[in-house]
C-alpha cells in the first residue's frame, strides 16, 4: 500500500490497515461462506485484538460496517482515531470517490473501547456513508486525507473494497454475441455464448430454451469447449465462452434471435435459524445462519440482426441460392468404356453457407444412358470457426448404345458475401467413348432382369404422403351407411317378407288339402273344357256327341259345385239332391228339362235336330251354369 506525507502520530496506520485488510480478504474468500457462524465469532475476536492493539498503540484504523459489501448497496467506512491523539487544529477528514462509489454523508461519534482487563480508551469514529458501485469486482476509494495543524496528510492512497453480488440476484449471467452485425440472406454467422458465474453459484446448469426461431437454418454446437476459468482480479467469479451455434437467415429484413434460457442452482440469501434445546431441565437457544440451495433461471438478451437481401443485378438465371465461399468439382471416373459397364460422375460441392444444406447443380440430359438413383452424402465439419458443409453426389450411368457422347459442362453458382459478387464454377465438357461390349454385357444391359439374376429387396429411398384424390362428384353430405334409408330398408325387409310368404304358403297348403274346395275351384275350368268339346261336336255336325258332351258338362258341373257324384243318379234322385242343396225350384226344373232334352236328342233321328236348336240348347246350358255359380 502506497503511503506519502505521513504524520508522526500516523506512523503505524499502515500496519493496522494491513491487519485489517488481511482479515477482510479472508472473510471475502469462499471459505467464509460455509463456516459463517464460526467466522462471525472469529471476527469479534479479531476486532477485539485489533482494538487491543489500537489501545496499546493508540493509532488510526479503518473498518467497515458490513462483512460483505454488495453491488449498489449502501455501506459505511469508519475511520477510528483515539481522542487523545486528536489535534486541536483539525478539519474533517476527506475521502475521494472513484470507481463508481457514491459519497452520501459524513458523520462522527465518540465511544470507548474496552480490553480484557476492563481498561480502554476513548475513540472517535468518522463515518463515511457510501453507496457501492453497481458493478461486481475489486474496486477502491481514496485517497483518504486529513488536514491537521494546517498541513494536509494523506492517510491512505487507495482503500481496496471487494464488491459482491447480492445473494438475491442471479449467480449466473449469460449473453449471446453474433460475430457479424449484418449478414446477407443465406450467409452463415456464428453466435458466441459467454457465461459468468458469481460467488453464490453452485452448478447444475441445464439449457431449457435453445430455440433459435424459424427464420434461420441452424447448426448447434455440442459446447464441449465450454470450460470455466477464473475471472482475472476476482477470487470467486468464473467465466467461459464458446461458440453456441452457426446460423444462416432464411429471409431478409430485421430478424430477431430469441433469448436462450438456462436453469442452475445457487445459494440463497443467509437466513437466521433459531434452535431450542432442552436437556436435564435446562433449555438453551442457539442461533445460526444458513444458506439453502435454490433453483434459478437466467436468460440471454434477444439479438436483433439486419439481414440484407441478395443483389438483384448480375444474379444468374439459374441461381442455386447458396451464399458463402464454395468450391465445385465434377469429374467422370473414366472416359472410355464398353456397353454394360458403369460410368460414375462424382460431384463434390463444399462451402461455408447454410449449415447442412447444399442444393444440387443442374445436370445435363443423360438420355443416352440408363441411370439409377444417385448416392448423396452430406457432411458437416467445423473448421476455422465455420461450419463447412460438403455434399458428394455419385451418379451411375449405363450407356445404352455404342458411340462417342459429348456431355456438356456442368456449372454451379453462388453469392460470395466477402466479395459481394456472384461467382460461377464450371466443370467439363467431357467426351465419353462407348465401345460395343461382350455379348453378356449387352444382354445384361438390354434385358432388364435376366432369369439368372439374383433378385433383391426393393430399396425404400424415402417416404411421403400419397397424392390427392379427384373431386369429381362431391356431394353435400357423406352420411355414414348406417344413417341411410336403404340400410334400414334392406335390414328390416326380410322380416315382413318372410311373414308374408310363410302365411301365403300355409294358406295355399290349407287350400290344396280341402278336396271339395279344390273341385269347386276347378268347376268352371272343367265346364269350359266340356262345353268346348260340345261346340266342336256341333261344328262337326255330330248331334249325339254334342248332346252327350252337353249332358256330361252339366252333370260334371253340378258334381264339382256340390262335391256330390250326380253321375249314375236317376233324375228323381238328382232333383231331391238338388233340393237338399237349397237350389231354387225353377233352376232344378231347368236342369231337369235340359237333361231331358239331351237324353231325347241322343236317341232321336238325326234329321229332326237342327243346328239352331243345338245352339239354343247350348246357350241355355251356359246361362244356367252361370246362374248355378251361387252353389260355390
Amino acid at each position, binding site marked *: 500500500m502506497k503511503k506519502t506525507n505521513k504524520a508522526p502520530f500516523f506512523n503505524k496506520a499502515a500496519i493496522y490497515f494491513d491487519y485489517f485488510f488481511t482479515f477482510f480478504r479472508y472473510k471475502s474468500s469462499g471459505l467464509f461462506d460455509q463456516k459463517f457462524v464460526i467466522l462471525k465469532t472469529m471476527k469479534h475476536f479479531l476486532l477485539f485484538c485489533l482494538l487491543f492493539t489500537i489501545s496499546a498503540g493508540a493509532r488510526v484504523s479503518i473498518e467497515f460496517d458490513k462483512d460483505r459489501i454488495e453491488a449498489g448497496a449502501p455501506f459505511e467506512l469508519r475511520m477510528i482515531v483515539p481522542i487523545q491523539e486528536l489535534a486541536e487544529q483539525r478539519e474533517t477528514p476527506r475521502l475521494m470517490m472513484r470507481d463508481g462509489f457514491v459519497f452520501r454523508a459524513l458523520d462522527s461519534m465518540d465511544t470507548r473501547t474496552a480490553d480484557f482487563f476492563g481498561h480502554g480508551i476513548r475513540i472517535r469514529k468518522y463515518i463515511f456513508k457510501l453507496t457501492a458501485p453497481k458493478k461486481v469486482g475489486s474496486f477502491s476509494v481514496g485517497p483518504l486525507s486529513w488536514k491537521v495543524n494546517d498541513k494536509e496528510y494523506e492517510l491512505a492512497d487507495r482503500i481496496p473494497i471487494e464488491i459482491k453480488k447480492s445473494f438475491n440476484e442471479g449467480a449466473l449471467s449469460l449473453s449471446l454475441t453474433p460475430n457479424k452485425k449484418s449478414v446477407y440472406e443465406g450467409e452463415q454467422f456464428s453466435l458466441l455464448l459467454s457465461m459468468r458465474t458469481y460467488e453464490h453459484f453452485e452448478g447444475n446448469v441445464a439449457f431449457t430454451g435453445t430455440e433459435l426461431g424459424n427464420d434461420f437454418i441452424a447448426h448447434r454446437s455440442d459446447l464441449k469447449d465450454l470450460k470455466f476459468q477464473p475471472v482475472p482480479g476476482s477470487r470467486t467469479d468464473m467465466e467461459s465462452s464458446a461458440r453456441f451455434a452457426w446460423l444462416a437467415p432464411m429471409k431478409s429484413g430485421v430478424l430477431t434471435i430469441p433469448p436462450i434460457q438456462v436453469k442452475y442452482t445457487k445459494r440463497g440469501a443467509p437466513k437466521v435459524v433459531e434452535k431450542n434445546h432442552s436437556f436435564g431441565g435446562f433449555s438453551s437457544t442457539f442461533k445460526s445462519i444458513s444458506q439453502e440451495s435454490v433453483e434459478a433461471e437466467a436468460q440471454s438478451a434477444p439479438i436483433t440482426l439486419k439481414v440484407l437481401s441478395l443483389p438483384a443485378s448480375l444474379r444468374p438465371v439459374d441461381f442455386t441460392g447458396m451464399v458463402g465461399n464454395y468450391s465445385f468439382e465434377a469429374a467422370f471416373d473414366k472416359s472410355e468404356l464398353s456397353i454394360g459397364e458403369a460410368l460414375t460422375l462424382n460431384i463434390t460441392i463444399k462451402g461455408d453457407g447454410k449449415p447442412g444444406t447444399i442444393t444440387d447443380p443442374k445436370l445435363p440430359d443423360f438420355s443416352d444412358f440408363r441411370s439409377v438413383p444417385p448416392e448423396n452424402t452430406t457432411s458437416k465439419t467445423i473448421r476455422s470457426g465455420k461450419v463447412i458443409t460438403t455434399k458428394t453426389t455419385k451418379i451411375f450411368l449405363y450407356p445404352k448404345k455404342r458411340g462417342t457422347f459429348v456431355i456438356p459442362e456442368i456449372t454451379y453458382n453462388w453469392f460470395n458475401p466477402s466479395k459481394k459478387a456472384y461467382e460461377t464454377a464450371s466443370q467439363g465438357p467431357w467426351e465419353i467413348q462407348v465401345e460395343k461390349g461382350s455379348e453378356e454385357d449387352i444382354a445384361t444391359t438390354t434385358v432388364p432382369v435376366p432369369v439368372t439374376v439374383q433378385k433383391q429387396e426393393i430399396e425404400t429411398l424415402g417416404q411421403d*404422403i400419397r397424392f*390427392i384424390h379427384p*373431386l*369429381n362428384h362431391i356431394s353435400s*353430405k*357423406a352420411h355414414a351407411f*348406417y344413417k341411410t334409408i336403404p340400410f334400414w330398408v334392406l335390414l328390416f325387409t*326380410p322380416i315382413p317378407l318372410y311373414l308374408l310368404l310363410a302365411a301365403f*304358403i300355409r294358406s295355399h297348403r290349407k287350400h290344396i288339402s280341402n278336396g271339395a274346395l279344390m273341385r269347386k275351384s276347378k268347376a268352371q275350368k272343367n265346364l269350359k273344357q266340356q262345353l268346348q268339346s260340345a261346340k266342336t261336336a256341333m261344328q262337326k255336325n255330330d248331334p249325339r256327341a254334342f248332346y252327350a258332351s252337353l249332358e256330361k258338362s252339366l252333370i260334371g258341373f253340378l258334381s264339382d259345385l256340390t262335391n256330390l257324384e250326380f253321375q249314375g243318379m236317376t233324375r228323381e234322385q238328382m232333383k231331391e239332391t238338388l233340393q237338399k242343396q237349397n237350389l231354387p225350384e225353377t233352376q232344378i226344373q231347368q236342369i231337369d228339362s235340359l237333361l231331358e232334352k239331351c237324353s231325347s236328342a241322343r236317341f232321336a233321328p238325326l234329321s229332326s235336330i237342327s243346328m239352331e236348336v243345338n245352339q239354343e240348347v247350348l246357350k241355355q246350358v251356359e246361362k244356367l251354369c252361370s246362374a248355378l255359380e251361387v252353389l260355390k
Partner: protein
Amino acid sequence: MKKLLTLLFFSLFISSAFAKDCSSEAEKGMNSYQNGQYEQAIDFWKTCTDQGIEHPDLFYNLGNAYFRLGRLGFAIFYYESAHRLNPSDKDIIHNLKHAKSLTKDKVKEAEENPILASIYALHHLISLKGELLIVIGLIWLIAAILLFKVISKSPRNKNICIGAIFILSIFLGIITLSAGYKIFVLETETKGVVTATSADVTSAPHDRSQTLNILSEGTVFKVLSIGNGWVEIQLGEKIKGFVKTTEVGIIDDLL
C-alpha cells in the same frame, strides 16, 4: 302407387335442385395443388367446406395441402376427419400414419393384453360398412332358410335348416356386436388435434391454473367435454386436463 311414385320423384327433384355444388372450386384447388400453390388450393377447397360440403376426399386433399405447407396439426386434423367419414380408404390411412409419425409427442399406451389385442385386431378386421353389409346379408340368408324350412316337407331338411340358422345366428350376433360397438364409439367418442405449434395442458379451465403438460403440434387426444373456450382432454392414462379451443381442432365439429 302412382301418387307415391310421383311424390318420390318430386322429392328427388327438389333435393337435386338444392344440392350444393362446388365442382369448379374443387377443380381449381386441384390445379393449384398440382402447381405447388398449396395455400391457394386450401382457399379453394375451404370454399367447399364453408358451404357445408363434407366429403372424405375433400378433407383428404386439404390434409395433403396442409402437410405440404408444414402445418402438421391441421394436416392430421383433416386426415382424421376424412378417416372418420371413410375408415377403409388406404390412402387416408397411409397419409394419416405418415403424418402422425412426424409428430414430436410420444404417447405411452397401456400395456396390451395379448388376448384383448387379438380381439381388437379381429374387431377392426372388417370395416363398419363391411360389417353392416354382412349383417344385412345374414338376415336375408336366415330369412331364406326359414322360408325353405317352411316349404320343405322332409324332416331331415328341416333339421339341416335349424342347424344352419343356429350357426348363422351366432355369426350375426358377433358381427352385430362389433358393428354396434363401432357405431357407439363413432357417436360418443370425439377426438381433437393440436393445431398450434404447442398447447399447454392446464389443471383447470382458466389462465391462472398450473400448466401440467405441453402438447406438440399434431398430437391427437380424446375430448371429454367442451365449453367456455376450453376443451377437457385425455391422452393415454396419465395426461388429463384442459386446453384452449384456439390451439386445437375438434374433429367432430366438422361432421
